[in-house]
C-alpha cells in the first residue's frame, strides 16, 4: 500500500518536474515548510539546546558565578562521599526499577492477553490507573501508606506478626520504598506497550509452535520474545532514561533521606542548586546524567533508523 502510494507519487513528481510553474511552487514549498517549523526550531534552540550548553558553562564557574574555575567543581564532587552515594543509588534505583517494571509489565501483559477479549478492556483500564494519576499525587498516597506512626501497611502486617517497618526511615527500606513506588507508577506503561506488541504477533506462529510440540515456556522463548524484541528494547531504554532522571517520587517520598541515602542525581542537584543556591555545583551534578542518557539515546536512534530503512 505504502509502496504503491510512493511510486505513484514519484511518477507524479517526475511528470510535474517538466512544468516550470510547479518548479516555482516547489521553491515556495520549502519556504512554507520552514515557516511552519520555525516555532518548533526556536523553542528547541532557545529552551532545550541553549540551556544544555549553558549548563556546561555554569558548571565551570564558582559559587558566586563570577570566576571561571575550570573543572574544580567536578574535582570537589569526586572528593565528596555523598556524590559517590548518589552515583551508586542512582544506578541501583534505575536498574532495579527498570528490570522489575519490564518483568512485571511482561507478566501482566501476558495475563491480560490470556483472558477472553471482551474482558480485556476492563482489566487494562484498571491496571493503567497508576500511570494516569500525576506521580506527585500518588506518591503522597504512598507516603501516607508508609507513614511512621499510622502506616496502613504496618497495621496489616502486624496481623502476620511482622513488626513495624520504618519504610522511609531505615536506609534499606527507604531504598526499597522509592523503587517500589517507581515500579508501581511505571509498570503499567510496559504492560500497555507489551500488550500492543503481543496483539501484533501472528496467531499462526503459536499454532505452528504448538504443532511442533512446544510447551508454553518454549512458545514464549522462541516465538513471543523474538517477535517482541524491538519493542522490549525500545521501551526499556525509554524507561531507563525516565527512571534515571526521576525527581517527583524520591523528592516527595524521602527527599533524599535518611542521611542522603536515597538521593539520585535530580534530587541532589535540586538540593544543591536550588535549595542550597549553589547553581554551578548543581549544574555539575545534573550533567552526570548526560553519559547514560547519551548511550541510551544512541541505541534508540539506531533502532529507529533501522526500522526506518526496513519500512
Amino acid at each position, binding site marked *: 500500500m505504502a509502496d504503491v502510494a*510512493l511510486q*505513484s*507519487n514519484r511518477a507524479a513528481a517526475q511528470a510535474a518536474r517538466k512544468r516550470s510553474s510547479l518548479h516555482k511552487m516547489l521553491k515556495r514549498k*520549502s519556504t512554507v*515548510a*520552514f515557516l*511552519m517549523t520555525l*516555532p518548533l526550531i526556536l*523553542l*528547541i534552540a532557545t*529552551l532545550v539546546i541553549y*540551556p*544544555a550548553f*549553558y*549548563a556546561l558553562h*555554569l558548571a565551570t564557574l564558582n559559587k558566586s*558565578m563570577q570566576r571561571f574555575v575550570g573543572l574544580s567543581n567536578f574535582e570537589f564532587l569526586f572528593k565528596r562521599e555523598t556524590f559517590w552515594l548518589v552515583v551508586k543509588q542512582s544506578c541501583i534505583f534505575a536498574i532495579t526499577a527498570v528490570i522489575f517494571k519490564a518483568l*512485571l509489565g511482561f*507478566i501482566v501483559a501476558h*495475563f491480560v492477553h490470556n*483472558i477472553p477479549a471482551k474482558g480485556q478492556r476492563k*482489566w487494562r*483500564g484498571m*491496571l493503567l490507573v497508576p500511570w*494516569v*494519576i*500525576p*506521580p*506527585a499525587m*500518588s506518591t*503522597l*498516597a504512598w507516603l*501516607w*501508606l508508609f*507513614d511512621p*506512626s*499510622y502506616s496502613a501497611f504496618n497495621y496489616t502486617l502486624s496481623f502476620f506478626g511482622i513488626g513495624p517497618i520504618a519504610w522511609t526511615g531505615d536506609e534499606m527500606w527507604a531504598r526499597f520504598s522509592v523503587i517500589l513506588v517507581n515500579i*508501581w507508577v511505571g509498570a503499567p506503561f510496559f504492560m500497555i506497550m507489551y500488550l*500492543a506488541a503481543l496483539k501484533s504477533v501472528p496467531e499462526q506462529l503459536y499454532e505452528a509452535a504448538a504443532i511442533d510440540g512446544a510447551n*508454553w515456556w518454549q512458545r514464549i522463548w522462541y516465538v513471543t520474545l523474538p517477535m517482541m524484541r524491538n*519493542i522490549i528494547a525500545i521501551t526499556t531504554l525509554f524507561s531507563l*532514561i*525516565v527512571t534515571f*532522571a526521576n*525527581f517527583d517520587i524520591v523528592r*516527595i517520598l524521602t527527599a533524599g533521606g535518611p542521611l542522603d541515602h536515597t538521593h539520585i542525581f*535530580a534530587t541532589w*542537584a*535540586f538540593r544543591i542548586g*536550588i535549595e542550597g543556591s549553589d*547553581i554551578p555545583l548543581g549544574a555539575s551534578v*545534573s*550533567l552526570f*546524567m*548526560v553519559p547514560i*542518557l547519551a548511550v*541510551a*539515546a544512541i541505541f534508540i*536512534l539506531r533502532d*529507529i533508523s533501522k526500522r526506518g530503512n526496513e519500512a
Partner: protein
Amino acid sequence: MTTVTIDKAGPTRKAKYGSMSRDRTWALRWSYFFLVIFAIFSLTPPIYMLITSLKSSAEISAATNPWWVFHPTLENYVGLLTSNQFLRFFWNSAIVSIFVVTITMLISVPAAFALARMRFWGSTVLATGVFLTYLIPETLLFIPLFKMFAVIGDWTGVQLINRWYVLLILYPTLTVPFCTWIMIGYFASIPKELDEAAIIDGASWFQTLTRIFIPVAFPGIIAATIFAFTVSWAQFLYPLVFTTSTDQLVMPVGIITTLIKGDVFNWGQIMTGALLGAAPPLIIYAFLMDYYIAGLTAGATKG
C-alpha cells in the same frame, strides 16, 4: 511405514486436545488470579486516598482500622473547596494546562505536517532532533533555565521567576517534542493521494493541513491533546523550582507546600487534595481511554 505413523499420530493428537483445553482452563484461572492481585496492587493507593479523604482528623489520629471508614464525613472536601487558596491552585493549574495545550498544538501540528509531508532541506535531521529533544529530561535543564530566567529578569526587568506564566514558556519544552513526534506518525499514515488531490484542486498547503490533514488525523490530535494536558497537569519539578508564592502555585506543588505545615501532616486534607488533583486526568482517561492508549503506544511504535 506411513500407516504406522498415522496410527501413532491419531490417539496422541486426541489426547493432546483434551490436555490443551484443560491447560487453557487452568491458564485462565491463573490469569484471573494474578490479575486480581495486580489490580489490588495498582488500585490500593488511589482507594486509600479515597478512604482517608472521607475521615475526620479525629478518626485518623485514633488509629483505628486504616482500611475502613467508621464515620464518613465530607468535611475535608468542604474545607478544601471553600478555601480560596486551594481554589487558586486549581484555577492556576487549569489555566496553565489549557494555555499549554493550545500553544503545544499550535506549534506541533504545523511542524509535524511540514516534517511529514513537505520534504525540505534538513527535514529528516530536524525530525530526529525533535525525537532526541523528547529524550532530554527536565531534570537536566531546570538549573540552567532557572539561571537563564534570572539573568533575563536582571537585564530586561521582565520578572519571570515566581510568576505562574513562566510555566507557559517551560511546559512546551516537555509537550511539543512528543506531540510533534506522534503527529508526524499520524500524518505519515495518511495516503499521499489525498493531499495530492487537494493540491491539484488548487488548495494551498495551509488549506491542505486544515481541511484534510487535521480532520483525517483527528484521533491523533485528540491523543496529542490528552498527552499535553496530562503532562502539564502533572508536572512537579518546574513549578517547584520556578514558583514560590502561594498565589502563583499550581495543584501538585500547592498541595505539598501548603498542606504540609512543618512536621504536621493533615492527612485527611492532603489525601483529599491529592484525589482532587488526580481527578481531571482520571476523568479524561475514563472517557477517552482508547485515545489515551493510542497516544501512549504511538510514541514508541511509530518510528
